[in-house]
């Protein structure tokens, strides 16, 4: 695995660029542990100071240093995205592998459910969830809700992979050697499915960070937790753009775009690794 990563890094431009971008973003988020100011604290620095030596990304109208605030925000956004991605991967893998491997009735039923979730528009449903839970809306609840809405596309992809694996020789051999279905899935099939899972994980992190930003900016999440979205929310609340405090908006937006592009490049390069002939399209898997 390590060698594959090294090879990818050396010979795949998308992968190396994506990895560099993501390492940069992770480094910034880790910097939060060195922050001289605690995360939620306000009025610790002068207001609305433009970027300077002391405050490289400037300060905002709430008396916070934008750079250090950003380190907390990106850390929370990344953690959130990862949590959603892991949860939804769990569902996608279980559904995809079971469906592809067991087949028959089980497959039809699971894929029917799957296709149902594929067409749900997540935003109205998440807004509904927020509307009901309002102040009880927590980080974890949102993550669970998003995970429940974000697995379907990838379950189909994993299923088609499992379908092709099922017909391979080693499955039959494993069956003869007396392995249980669970064992076959975990030990024989998972390694083949993992690269795809990795690629979809990157996409899913993108998707969930994007949705989180969207919900936060409108104020539909816990606005006291610093994330990229809530940072923009507070900037908007203080009409930062009109007031000319552009750095309050520009840096979070810039950083989150770097994150999106980095994750996207990683997923693309992984797809290329899986299918060197050309890039896989996520949509092609559904036809």
């Amino acid at each position, binding site marked *: 695995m390590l060698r594959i990563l090294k*090879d990818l890094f*050396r*010979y795949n431009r998308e992968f190396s660029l994506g990895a560099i971008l993501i390492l940069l973003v992770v480094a910034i988020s880790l910097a939060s542990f060195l922050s001289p100011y605690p995360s939620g604290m306000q009025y610790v620095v002068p207001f609305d100071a433009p970027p300077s030596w002391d405050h490289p990304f400037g300060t905002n109208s709430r008396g916070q240093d934008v750079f250090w605030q950003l380190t907390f925000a990106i850390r929370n956004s990344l953690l959130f995205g990862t949590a959603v991605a892991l949860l939804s991967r769990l569902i996608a893998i279980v559904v995809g592998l079971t469906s592809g491997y067991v087949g028959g009735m089980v497959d039809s039923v699971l894929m029917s459910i799957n296709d149902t979730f594929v067409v749900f528009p997540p935003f109205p449903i998440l807004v509904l969830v927020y509307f009901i839970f309002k102040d009880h809306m927590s980080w974890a609840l949102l993550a669970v809700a998003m995970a429940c809405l974000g697995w379907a596309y990838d379950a189909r992809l994993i299923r088609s992979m499992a379908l092709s694996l099922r017909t391979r020789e080693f499955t039959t051999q494993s069956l003869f050697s007396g392995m249980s279905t669970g064992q076959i899935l975990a030990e024989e099939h998972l390694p083949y499915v993992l690269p795809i899972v990795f690629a979809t994980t990157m996409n899913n992190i993108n998707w969930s960070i994007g949705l989180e930003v969207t919900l936060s900016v409108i104020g539909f999440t816990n606005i006291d937790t610093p994330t990229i979205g809530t940072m923009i929310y507070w900037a908007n609340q203080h009409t930062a753009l009109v007031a000319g405090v552009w750095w309050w908006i520009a840096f979070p937006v810039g950083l989150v775009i770097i994150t999106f592009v980095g994750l996207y490049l990683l997923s693309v390069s992984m797809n290329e690794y899986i299918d*060197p002939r050309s890039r896989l399209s996520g949509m092609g898997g559904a036809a």
Partner: protein
Amino acid sequence: MRQSGRDNGSTVGPHPPPEGAPALSVDNLRAYYLTHYFGVEREVRAVDDISLVVRRNEIYGLAGESSCGKTTFLKTVAAAVRPPLSVIGGSVQYAFLDRDLYALNPAKLSAIRWRRLSYITQGSMNVLNPVRRVRESFIDFAYRHMGLKRRPFFAAVNEHLQRLHLAASVLDAYPHELSGGMKQRVTIALATICRPEFIIADEPTTALDVIVQKDVLAMIREAQQQIGSSMLFVTHDMTVHANIADRLGIMYAGRLVEEAPTADIFANPKHPYTAHLVASLPRIGEQSRKESLSGAPPNLANPPSGCRFHPRCPLAMEVCREASPALTTLAPGRRVACYAASPLVKPSPTAERVAGATHRAERVGLVQ
């Protein structure tokens, strides 16, 4: 000007073609797959120094076990070369062209395709566009060459289909509505409708069951004779060759190792590999188990030194390990590359690598 009598629509014209005049001459052809994937460079020498002549009005069969480079050779003589395959050296001359095949510009090349040179590729089951009716495929491939208006064009197509025992109704079908055998026939019809001088066919019958296969083979032979064209026919199946080929070339690991009229090859194979191929044919009334060749076909990325067959050859000698035997003419029409076949066979004069021949690689990708 072309001289064959086929312009009159019959094989016997006022000036019958001189028997034995070459239709295709290939000289010292080399074509390698050059790949680099994750930094590892690989060079697969799939066609390594092949010279042969296909005469007018004959079917030249090419045989050899899987992955010995048959398809690659056909691609090269059909100018269907695209990366990672590239032509390293040698020449390909067709009688109907005034220059080397690889000296043609793309427009010229496109003008001769299907009109004078057509190619039935391996796996020709899938060469028809699944969302296009057969009729439209005929228009796409042949209309511009025939110089006819729509009506006479389809009249000609219908007539041709009839000749190949296909109902005119196939024109309105989509490929998935045809059986495998019908698809093969349609492909062959498509390749012969313009009455090309030269037809290249790569395993056109492999996917078919024996009965249909016989049918299709008869049809190919018939079409070839009606048009009076030459044909390069590849299959690894020696029984098919016995039925269809006038002359046979045997390939092993990217090289031509023997060539002779079909009957001679079967009656008296000179090369140990040919002998093995012929011996492994089933014969009526034979009980004994066939002796199989030990070892695997060589890796073309790193072929054995000397005679490439030596690791598996029952007659291998000291010299076989060191120097590659040249393909030597033993009698008119009979060539073989084996030290054991005749004392006339000497080591190949061509070095393993022809220096300065790589400029050829610049000219590849004409299809692109």
